């Protein structure tokens, strides 16, 4: 239904790096990758769509978003911060409760069965 479904819109560019095997991310969960000193939260949806955003939750100051629960709000995929439960849209990085806050998004791809991120 939504053409953007498969593409994260990266807000930063950089070099591509392989991160982990797809199997290391359980479906419907996230992991955190350390890429060029950045903490990046990578999420694997039920249908194997991948999203990558900052792991840092600016509302709590903790690096925790990869451990948040993922799901959707009105069809838009989101992660809920485990600390104070703010929601961030996975496609845009925008905070649902506070539209002025937006996280960096990163390009993420599946090559063979390995997850690659550009950061």
């Amino acid at each position, binding site marked *: 239904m939504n053409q953007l479904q498969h593409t994260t819109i990266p807000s930063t560019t950089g070099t591509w790096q392989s991160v982990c095997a797809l199997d290391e991310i359980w*479906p419907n969960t996230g992991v955190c990758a350390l890429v060029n000193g950045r903490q990046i939260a990578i999420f694997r949806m*039920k249908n194997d769509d991948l999203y990558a955003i900052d792991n840092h939750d600016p509302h709590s100051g903790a690096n925790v978003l990869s451990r948040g629960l993922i799901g*959707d*709000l009105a069809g838009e995929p989101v992660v809920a911060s*485990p600390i104070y439960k703010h929601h961030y849209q996975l496609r845009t990085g925008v905070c649902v409760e506070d539209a002025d806050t937006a996280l960096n998004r990163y390009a993420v791809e599946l090559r063979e069965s390995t997850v690659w991120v550009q950061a």
Partner: protein
Amino acid sequence: MNEHIRILVVGNGMVGHYFVQELVKRHPDLSAAKLEVTVLGEEPRPAYDRVHLSSFFSGSTAEDLSLVEPGFYDRPGLELRLNARASSIDRIQHTVTLTDGSTLAYDKLVLATGSVPFVPGVAGRDRENCFVYRTIEDLEAMTAAGTKAKSGVVVGGGLLGLECAKALCDMGLETHVVEFAPRLMAVQVDEAGGQVLRSKIESLGVHVHTNRNTTAIVDGATARHRMVFFDETWLETDMIVFSAGIRPRDELARDSGLAIGARGGIAIDDFSRSSDHDIYAIGECASWNGEMFGLVAPGYDMARTACAHLFGETASTFQGADMSTKLKLMGVDVASVGDAHGKTPGCRSFHYLDELRQIYKKIVVSEDNKTLLGAVLIGNADEFGTLQQMALNAMPLPDNPEFLILPASDGKEKPGLGVDALPDSAVLCSCNNVSKGAIGEAVAAGACSIGEIKACTKAGTACGGCVPLVTQVMKAEMRKHGMAVNNHLCEHFPYSRQELYHIVRVEQIRTFDELLAKHGKGLGCDICKPTAASVLASCWNDFILKKDLASLQDSNDYFLGNIQKDGSYSVVPRMPGGEVTPDGLIAIGQIAKKYSLYTKVTGGARVDMFGARVEQLPNIWEELIAAGFESGHAYGKSLRTVKSCVGSTWCRYGVDDSVGLAVQLENRYKGLRAPHKIKFGVSGCTRECAEAQGKDVGIIATENGWNLYVCGNGGMKPRHAELLASDLNKEDLIKMIDRFLMFYIRTADRLQRTSTWRDNLEGGLDYLKDVVIHDSLDLGAELEAQMQHVVDNYQDEWKTAVTDPEVRKRFRSFVNSTVGDNNIVFVSEREQMRPATPEEKRLEKTIPILALVD
């Protein structure tokens, strides 16, 4: 010379106290308002809730019943004298003399002396073990006598008499009710209703004797007393309680020459003034238009009127009272509305009688068939609210009024009241005088659960009879404000948590995906996923970090530890009952030291270790498990701790082994997941050192077994636990706890503690007792079996987690690196480490950072 106005209130009962509250509401600083208020109370304690007096038998204490907020009578300008009885009034001097001889002057006098139980003039009525039912002292005396008696008789089959009969029944006595009239509750109920009520009550084991006039009480042959009736039949019994009506305490007024009503009582006008305009009379001692009111609501009404009049307001007047009543007598619904006996000329009535289910309903309508005049409901009083409002507000009747009381037949909606038709002025809660308008205001101000409505309007907090109607009005008001009244969990599931629980059980659903596919839509969210996880765990108790369950778990369950503000975790091993060996303590100390964890003894009587990074958790737990510990579930919406005092093993007051029981209970219910966390407490005697009455489940040892309290809470909104059952042996105790917990799990909302669940439970404590103790829903065995399933499937989650390499791999900060999160920084304080503040993190270089061991 005294420029203050001296107000003297005689009687510190329900109405007298309410009057003083009204004064204080108008003038919080009485002294500044130049008021000098003195209150005389003959009883040894300040005002208490007589309406709920009977709950004294089910464990309420005098403090629980108190109506007086601590410190209320300490304010300047207000004095309360207890054990102080007024003996005469001098209306010319404006003074009142007390039995101790002292004299008090007044400018305005308020008589709120209530009434006394009427004891018929039977020879032998003042023998030992003959009681009345009015004060806490009466009940204390009855309780003492009850322990030595086998049987008891209540004289009087009215409202109070039946309530008293229930108390005797609960004491385990063979109970009789002796009534002078030809039927029970003659005042409220008609002939046919009385019949149904009688057979209901007899089926509960109470012997009912109507048309019996007692002529004498003499020594018995098989029991202490023999009651002899006018027809020379007799009945033997160990104790007797007279509850044959009440008489107003108007003696002060009579002796000082005030006008007295035709049937007694201090005659008052519409402003609650007696024939002397400096003297008001309010409550049960007053007679308005020759009528006296044996209920508290009209008394409150008089108190408000008198107070307003005292300050020169003449707009509000006392206009009589609606004597409609609804109560549950011995588990039987009894209600009467308005003209229950159909005394209005030309009126017609409709009856419905179901002899199988023992239900009787009657409505009385006006001659023109347009308005409802009265009603009687026995056995089931669901329509009470509707009928009462229809009668009170003279609302138009539907075309076929008989459908109001007929059972709804399939597919046909019962003609309801349509709460929208009610005027804003309609009083929904007559005990606390809460109108429909007030409920509307509360909703507009944000209240959207019956618990919140109760808290801010007090509606439904006295007798509770109005709760269904108040709920209806609340929902209608919410709809008006465009608030969602659906109880859908979230946008993904059009069901409440209770409904989902039911679906999961009935369809044996074991995964979220299946639940979502069959009953939901979208991907789910952080509301429905943890709720489903909790429901699945309550039902099946599978390992929560299984691949298809892990992704549902909330922050804390996700890594089996409480996530702290900086993203580090705490580690809490279980110490059942707070018991731990020295070796256990040493092991914890060594592990905490090795991983540089901050340690603290918690309010839950165990040791928490803070500051573990996610990748350290499996190693820490591996060592704890090796030392004999298991998960404390401090992270779960599940059983936390069973706090205990040291009990009879060590304590010189202890009557039973509270620690032993606590350990047993904690081991039984550990790992049980619920809508919210559950805390237990067990005390070894009534000194209650474990504070069990502040817990969801509290147990206190008595000489005869264990008393079980439920639904207490500490925290933000403390709530005293209520006595559910007493003197249980261990086996029954566990059975009751099984049922209670599973019933809570089954019916509570998400994140609803037992205390709020209980506040929102329609039917309240009585209903809970019916379900848990009397198994009224026929669920007992099922609930016990479900609990046994959870108990049998317990596993130590941490043990499973560290021994499964797949699961263990999840515990790391980074999927592609073994380093830790450099945002987790600790500094030292009081010889331990704590998380650095953001400020300290910025100055990182200039202050000593504690080294971290991996």
